[in-house]
């Protein structure tokens, strides 16, 4: 069974700090995604990556960057944290978008991030 692991379940940081959220998957999936989840808004795509060192902006990339140096690891970076980035962050992976997206994504348990 696919396992997607996010390094922290809860994180508290201060405004202006640089914040790293880490995600690792163990099934050699090509595609990885970062979402933020806010009540009433569902999941919104921040960034995704379809290969090592490749990244694409999602719907809300402002204030974020990502890094994918190895296939199994996808990091989300908040360059200078702000209070409006307080949210639940979810990482997901999928084997291959080549089949047209007909496979479900596999999600980590999320990181609940609070920016004070």
């Amino acid at each position, binding site marked *: 069974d696919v396992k997607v692991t996010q390094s922290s379940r809860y994180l508290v940081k201060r405004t202006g700090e640089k914040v790293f959220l880490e995600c690792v998957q163990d099934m050699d999936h090509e595609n990885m995604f970062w979402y933020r989840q806010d009540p009433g808004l569902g*999941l919104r795509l921040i960034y995704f990556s379809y290969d090592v060192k490749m990244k694409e902006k999602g719907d809300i990339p402002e204030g974020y960057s990502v890094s994918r140096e190895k296939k199994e690891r996808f990091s989300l970076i908040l360059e200078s944290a702000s209070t409006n980035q307080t949210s639940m962050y*979810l990482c997901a992976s999928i084997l291959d978008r080549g089949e047209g997206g007909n496979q*479900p994504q596999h999600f980590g348990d999320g990181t609940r991030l609070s920016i004070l």
Partner: protein
Amino acid sequence: AQSVAQPEDQVNVAEGNPLTVKCTYSVSGNPYLFWYVQYPNRGLQFLLKYITGDNLVKGSYGFEAEFNKSQTSFHLKKPSALVSDSALYFCAVNSYGQNFVFGPGTRLSVLP
């Protein structure tokens, strides 16, 4: 552009009664439709999907969903609700070469 609507923020149902969680979608091309469930402080878990074929699809934990192309709907159903079904449910749509789009979620409460 793809979009998903879940018209109800909250659905309450008594244990043992049938439940329905509604979803409508908009997509260009053939849709791939998914339902996920989220328990407190957990990630999303895949329940079921519709890709093609039979309009009624069956998934995990006794859930099923009916695809209706003319109404662009994909409602989640279960014949007899359990208290343990109480959770947040997300409908998602995808199509060839696109990214997933998720609905806002519907909170299901099953009352004992």
